[in-house]
């Protein structure tokens, strides 16, 4: 326990931070619960589902995790900043639809569609943030509204333009090959095929962790979510940080949307609904507090990994895939309780 003494020490002893045991530092990290969860779920399915043990199956698991994990890392930033985004799931589809429709109907080039989609996704993020700071409503309400609006727009506009609920195939268009290479290519290691999305997922987690823990903006995000008034009092531009966070989520859903578009060549306008909750669940399993100010980008990526393993594990174990959602719920509950317990233990020392 820290102590306070009455006399000021003029000579300064070297700080004693380094003396702390490594394991104590480790259990204080927010992502440690998720790390334990990864090990548990991995062992569980390795024992129960024989196909789970093969490398080719494992690449599928990693891919599944990446498609959840890329938006989940951005969502963890937003949650640390104290806000939610329920529109992130359908916004992925909005982004793919925008790119596909603009590329096929307006521009004639895939890359121009990709750029318009980026602008659109950032604008939706900025709109979410702007509405939040202007109306002062809870982000749950603001983004629930944009979620429902986007869900309607996705289907309505796609029907209006293409006459069906899906977009035209873009695989024969100018620029498709290069865009496919960037967003949805794959490579082979030891006979197993890895999607490039896996690399992006890891990159998002690593860069995200560095930004949160080692940059000024990262410090500000924790402060804005932890105690907004205090952050404002020391001169942090709280509103700009919040709008920026929503735009970061916009960027990540654009990235995911582009991957989906170039992986499947066509977009189903009703896709993406429900994923927003999986992003939030990943972030929470990864150590994020619903109330903000606490969490981890790497933890969120690990949370997505847990859900990726569960989706595929249920299939490999030959169970009905409907069990997946049950597992998601159960793990969310367990992880939240465990993380809370760990946090009180760690902070009480």
């Amino acid at each position, binding site marked *: *326990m*820290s*102590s*306070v*003494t*009455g*006399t*000021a*020490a*003029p000579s*300064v*002893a070297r*700080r*004693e*931070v380094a003396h*702390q045991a490594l394991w104590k*530092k480790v259990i*204080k990290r927010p992502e440690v619960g998720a790390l334990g969860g990864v090990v548990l779920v991995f062992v569980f399915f390795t024992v129960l589902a024989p196909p789970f043990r093969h490398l080719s199956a494992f690449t599928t698991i990693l891919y599944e995790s990446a498609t959840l994990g890329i938006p989940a890392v951005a969502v963890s930033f937003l949650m640390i900043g104290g806000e939610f985004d329920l529109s992130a799931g359908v916004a992925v589809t909005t982004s793919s639809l925008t790119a596909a429709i603009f590329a096929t109907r307006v521009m004639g080039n895939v890359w121009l569609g990709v750029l318009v989609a980026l602008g659109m996704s950032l604008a939706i993020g900025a709109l979410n943030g702007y509405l939040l700071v202007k109306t002062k409503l809870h982000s749950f309400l603001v983004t629930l509204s944009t979620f429902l609006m986007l869900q309607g727009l996705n289907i309505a506009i796609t029907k209006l333009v293409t006459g069906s609920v899906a977009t035209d195939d873009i695989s024969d268009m100018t620029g498709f090959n290069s865009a496919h290479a960037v967003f949805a290519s794959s490579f082979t290691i030891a006979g197993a095929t890895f999607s490039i999305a896996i690399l992006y997922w890891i990159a998002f987690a690593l860069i995200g962790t*560095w930004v949160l823990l*080692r*940059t*000024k903006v990262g*410090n*500000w995000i*924790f*402060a804005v979510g*932890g*105690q907004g*008034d*205090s*952050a404002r*009092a*020391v*001169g*942090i531009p709280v509103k700009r940080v919040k709008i920026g966070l929503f735009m970061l989520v916009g960027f990540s859903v654009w990235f995911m949307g582009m991957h989906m578009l170039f992986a499947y060549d066509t977009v189903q306008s009703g896709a993406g609904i429900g994923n927003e909750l999986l992003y939030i669940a990943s972030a929470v399993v990864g150590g994020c*507090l619903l109330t903000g*100010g*606490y969490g981890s980008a790497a933890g969120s990526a690990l949370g997505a990994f847990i859900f990726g393993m569960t989706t595929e594990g249920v299939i490999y174990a030959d169970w009905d895939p409907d069990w997946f959602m049950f597992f998601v719920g159960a793990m969310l509950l367990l992880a939240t309780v465990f993380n809370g317990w760990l946090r009180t233990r760690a*902070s*009480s*020392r």
Partner: protein
Amino acid sequence: MAEHSSPIIQLTDVGKSYGNFTALKDVNLAVRQGEVTCILGDNGAGKSTLISIIAGLHTHDQGIYAVDGKAMHFTSPREALDLGISAVYQTLAMVPLLSIWRNFFLGSELMRGAWPFRRLDVGTMLDTTDVELKRMGINVTDLEQPVGTLSGGQRQVVAIARAVHFGARVLILDEPTAALGVSQSGIVLRYIAHAAREQGIGVIFITHNPHHAYMVGDHFMVLARGEVELDAPRSELSLDNLMFHMAGGAGLNALQHELLRGEQAAAATGKVGVD
């Protein structure tokens, strides 16, 4: 030494009105290096208005507010801060879940490296926080521990140390002991005295506790309904006298008289025993 140095802050007949309502009237105040000026008063006495003016949150509309002999009209707290006038409010501008060193440098982070690898200079910030806290006499074993795990008094002292580090010459402490227990208040009072005597900072200590004020104060001002009820140096004032003024002065005598008469009347009818 304090008596001889020229004041950092000098208020002459300062007043402030909101429409017809006079929040503050004819306040004269000098804050000197190394001196603790206590401002006492009941709720709504004008303490908040006074410190808002000094800290630059509000502008006065009567009298002269001079810093280092120069008349000022602050339009933002930033301007006051740039002159070394720093306010530590009850909310403390701290984030409970963030570590001590991150809180210490929040909004003024030290950076190193070139973009895009520009990053927090964690080592320097840890060392500086450590030095500054030790200078204030606080010894915290782990600067990585969240501020929320500190006691109320320690948190207050960290906030004071932060203000001192970032160049405060005048510290405005807004009821720093109001939410604290006896021992925690003791910690804070000790550092208020320390900041003034050892570091030569001019302290404006706002409180409604005359006992706390009398322990550290060099100069006392009691406000009531926006006006100065009492303005005296320590040498001309006893604690009883301060408490008398603080409790409402002459008004209290009248109240006491009134209540006493009520009790006597009750005792006379035999319904209530008066001890």
